[in-house]
């Protein structure tokens, strides 16, 4: 028997969260809450497991296929459990002109990770422009934003990731 998705308390919190989200939409448009509902699930559970998406679909009165369709369209949603630290490195043009490709290589070497491959501890990925063009290069660790990066700053950042 697999472990349940949520403890009783978590389930309560999740249900209250969904109810709050549904109040933002017309009563006959429950499925509109799909993105915020999936975000809530991912925030609480770390990723989007099948039983969680089933819960979202049921509460939003839609099909689980719809939940999968949305979950797989948007890159921030994880339908597989990601490493403890998801590191998104912008390598778009403005960052590339300020050393982003070198920064990605530096991270690959330091973390012994390959960009795009999920690992137990790190999921290092290339991502697209993060609106730090005037403060490049930049990256995000579990959605926390870091900009104006140098080797020294990246070293300091990585030291905090245990």
């Amino acid at each position, binding site marked *: 028997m697999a472990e349940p998705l949520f403890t009783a308390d978590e389930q309560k919190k999740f249900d209250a969260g969904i109810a709050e989200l549904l109040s*933002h939409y*017309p009563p006959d*448009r429950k*499925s*509109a*809450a*799909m*993105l*915020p509902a*999936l*975000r809530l699930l991912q925030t609480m559970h770390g990723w989007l497991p099948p039983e969680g998406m089933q819960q979202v679909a049921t509460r*939003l009165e*839609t099909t689980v296929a*719809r939940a999968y*369709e*949305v979950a797989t*369209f*948007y*890159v*921030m*949603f994880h339908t597989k459990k990601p490493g403890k630290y998801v590191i*998104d490195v912008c*390598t*778009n*043009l*403005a960052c*590339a*002109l*300020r*050393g*982003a*490709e*070198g*920064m990605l*290589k*530096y991270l690959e070497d330091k973390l012994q990770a390959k960009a795009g491959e999920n690992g137990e501890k790190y999921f290092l990925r290339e*991502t*697209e*422009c*993060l*609106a*730090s*063009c*005037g*403060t*490049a*290069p930049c990256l*995000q660790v579990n*959605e*926390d*934003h870091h900009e104006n990066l*140098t*080797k020294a700053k990246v070293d300091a950042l990585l030291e905090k990731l245990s």
Partner: protein
Amino acid sequence: MSVLAEKVITRDWHKGANHTLDGYQKNGGYEQLKKALTMAPAAITDEVKKSGLRGRGGAGFPTGLKWSFVPSLEKNTKPRYLAINADESEPGTAKDRFILENDPHLLLEGIGIACFALGAHTCYIYARGEFKHPSAVLDKAIAEAYAAGIFGKKLMGTDFELNVYQVRGAGAYICGEETALLESLEGKKGWPRLKPPFPAVVGLFGSPTVVNNVETIASLPRIFEKGAEWFMKLGTGKSGGTRLVTVSGAVLRPGTYEVSMDTSLRELIYDKAYGQGLPEGRTVKACIPGGSSAPVLTADELDVKLEFDAFKPLQSMAGSGGVMVMDDTACMVRCLWRVARFYAEESCGQCTPCREGQPWMARIIRKIEEGRGEPADLDTLVNVAQAIAPWPPIGLGNTICALGDAGALPVQSFVQKFRKEFEDHIAQKRCPHGETPWGVFGEFK
């Protein structure tokens, strides 16, 4: 040098705590919403029309005119919606995020004014999923506005109900396109809709909806404070106000600046108040003026003013104010490959020319950059681009939305203006820039 006469958007950013309701009100905040609520809705729209305010998301469409496309309540009794596009993701663009971080109430006050003018009782702010910090600041500001009785059942104590919700995206460039944004707000994947009908008539949940950019709506409180004529006079030509632009790449002082629309690209790059030029010995080779979908300009084309209509003769656009500068040691093939990869990755997959064409172009450019190119490749590249959107640009490509054009037009412009670099790669069977394709600041230190 065209000096910025007065700051509009960034005016109070240096004043402490402007991002809180308390600080914002100390700087005169929400007085303009109070004033607008005493006006007739149609008179508000007229003021906006007179101000020359144009959409800051990239298209530069006149805002008041957009509002006037919403049918009257007699003709269409459905609820109206305002959707704020805070999905800033055009490469090179970094401005809306700073409004959310530094002045969220300026946006919220603008939303109040716009919703009252439009008769919209619900506003959704669609914020980019990656904007964790800006979204947190905005959420706090919304909560403050509700707690202070600004939003809710009674908008600033009037009988007009207004609810404002933030919805966060989840990583899809396409959702910055207004109909894809509406699809996403409806809880779906972001596939753009055929137009017409336009959102002003059939938008969110089938209702009349106006979609406006953050910077556009944040301009409203100032227009009502100082008057439409003042705003119009700040601008040039048919465009009122100032612009937030981001200069990045090979300049000494990259950053986001509020500028007069009378400022030229050259001034933005070289002036000491802005980019401060390039390191000694380096010159500009190329400049993308309005986000990466804007066709590239050469060093000879930098005297263009940062106004919406000024770029048309150059077959480019002012776009979203993302100015990216490449110096004389940067590789144009490598730069274009990076741009093409983005559009290949972000094509939503709905229309065949874009879904198949963008990755095809990216593969050809990569092949050339890696020294495997053949002479016929350049013609193929141009043909594929031409099949997605015609060059010279006519504003309408062969796809449902403008993402097709956004990926195809840069390719055409790079090949046309820097053809010799592509030919050199093919002839020498390598990138002449070797390991250092990114120019003067390309090394990670």
